[in-house]
């Protein structure tokens, strides 16, 4: 190996070490070395358990919804022609471009007492803001792009010849989707789901604005970290952070195990 390759590798590894590995390891180390009992105490606190439950509930709605939307949207953008296609394509990326806090503010205005939807919903006895629905809506919003963004280039790459072949062999559109299209894009979908899940678990800004962070009610795991930090309960901060990081790392490891080595045929 020549010196140039070595230098490049050292820079890449060094960068990863400083930006990713070091902070993550620090979380692990601090959790156990610093205040392990405090971490455990914070994690077994019913409010923390509830916070994780809220996070998972929001993800449980957002992930399937955005997977379905992402696949359908990808198919529409790549395989169909319709007016306003460019606009749809651009709008899918909007949640990536917007700061989550702005998203939260927009939802706040929309669902607030005097907002367009809020006034009607409040009039009919539905509470959206400072309740689970607003957390779910915010989470869905910020995690829209990931499946679509993974699926679109893959659909473009495989082209539509295999689908045409399936049609000439007698397959309906539905059969073609299940037997040909979906198996061809399955790793893009899986990867999209992993990214969507990570985004849902990590969401902070938009949810912080709309949920009100009510302990044991509308507090998510990430908001709980903030809460513990403000209460100077460092053990709790590390403990909850560790669990969040562990979930993320586990999903990534699981995926690399399940995914076959020849990822693209």
């Amino acid at each position: 190996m020549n010196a140039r390759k070595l230098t490049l590798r050292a820079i890449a590894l060094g960068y990863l070490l400083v930006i990713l590995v070091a902070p993550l390891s620090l979380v692990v180390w601090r959790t156990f070395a610093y205040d392990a009992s405090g971490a455990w105490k914070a994690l077994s606190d019913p409010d923390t358990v509830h916070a994780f439950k809220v996070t998972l509930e929001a993800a449980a709605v957002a992930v399937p919804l955005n997977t379905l939307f992402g696949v359908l949207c990808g198919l529409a953008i790549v395989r169909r022609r319709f007016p306003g296609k460019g606009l749809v394509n651009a709008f899918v990326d909007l949640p990536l471009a917007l700061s989550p806090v702005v998203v939260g503010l927009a939802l706040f205005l929309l669902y607030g007492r005097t907002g367009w939807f809020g006034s009607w919903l409040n009039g009919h006895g539905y509470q959206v803001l400072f309740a689970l629905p607003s957390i779910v809506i915010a989470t869905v919003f910020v995690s829209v792009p990931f499946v679509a963004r993974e699926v679109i280039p893959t659909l473009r790459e495989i082209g539509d010849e295999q689908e045409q072949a399936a049609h000439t062999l007698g397959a309906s559109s539905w059969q073609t989707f299940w037997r040909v299209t979906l198996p061809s894009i399955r790793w893009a979908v899986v990867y999209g789901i992993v990214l969507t899940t990570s985004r849902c678990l990590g969401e902070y800004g938009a949810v912080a604005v709309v949920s009100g962070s009510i302990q044991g009610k509308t507090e998510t795991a990430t908001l709980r970290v903030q809460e513990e930090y403000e209460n100077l309960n460092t053990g709790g901060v590390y403990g909850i952070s560790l669990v969040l990081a562990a979930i993320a790392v586990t999903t990534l490891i699981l995926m690399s195990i399940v995914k076959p080595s020849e990822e693209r045929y």
Partner: protein
Amino acid sequence: MSISVRNVSKRFGDFVALDGVSITVAPGSLTALLGPSGSGKSTLLRVIAGLETPDSGSVFIEERDMTGRRPQDRGVGFVFQHYAAFKHMTVFQNVAFGLAIRKRPRAEIRKRVAELLELVQLDGLAGRYPSQLSGGQRQRMGLARALAVEPSVLLLDEPFGALDARVRTELRDWLRRLHDETRTTTVIVTHDQEEAMEVADEVVVMHRGKVEQVAGPRELYDLPANEFVMTFVGQANRLGDAFVRPHDLELTLEPNGTTREAMIERIVHLGFEVRLDLVREDGERLQVQITRDEAEQLELESRQIVFVKPTRQTTFR
């Protein structure tokens, strides 16, 4: 089963792909659609298969109007230039696809696929994935897949276009033999006139979205309908208003009144055949084809002056 295309037109934006095309394909025949790229031959094939919707005109297969029908309801087998193999399926699953869609019993599928794989000489490779096959093998798998559902017509879109020359001739012969055995009405699209002449009973020559001539290979070569067919199917020299094939030029070393003078620019030895590039005084170029024996007798050399006379020529209008 017969195919009849009546007055079909198709545009893509400003580009006219098909301009009032009508053709009839006889049952059990092997017909080639021949033309340069952009001539509309592939579009015509895709219109027959239902993969493209014509702007006007109609398509009949076995006397049944198929014009508005979806591809899956037409009973056609289609073979793609770039194979369109189902990459996530094994060779067996690829060939079995059409039968699985038709919910045939498993034992029957297994038997039929085994038969087909033997027919296309892929037995023993049933468990492989398309990525583990060569181009020629992939295309034979594509053929087996199309034949599995016993289509009433078999449509091939430049099936050998992506293969190297040797495999291409091999598969061409093999397709001809397969057709002689199965007698499935077959339409093959190609831009290679040699391929069309070699494999087909009848050739439809297309140019700019129109049919220029429909004829058997021999008639097409000997009695071309117009200038385009004359120059596209086989080589032709232009002598004033007339066209002369390179092998219809007689070469002599002495002038005799009706001959024209020319200089040999290049001699190309192609085994049995020798090809000469000549330049006339006025700068016009001629291609002459003679046999090796003739060339040896004349003791031809580069830059030599020779005299040519057409033995047979064609004039249009």
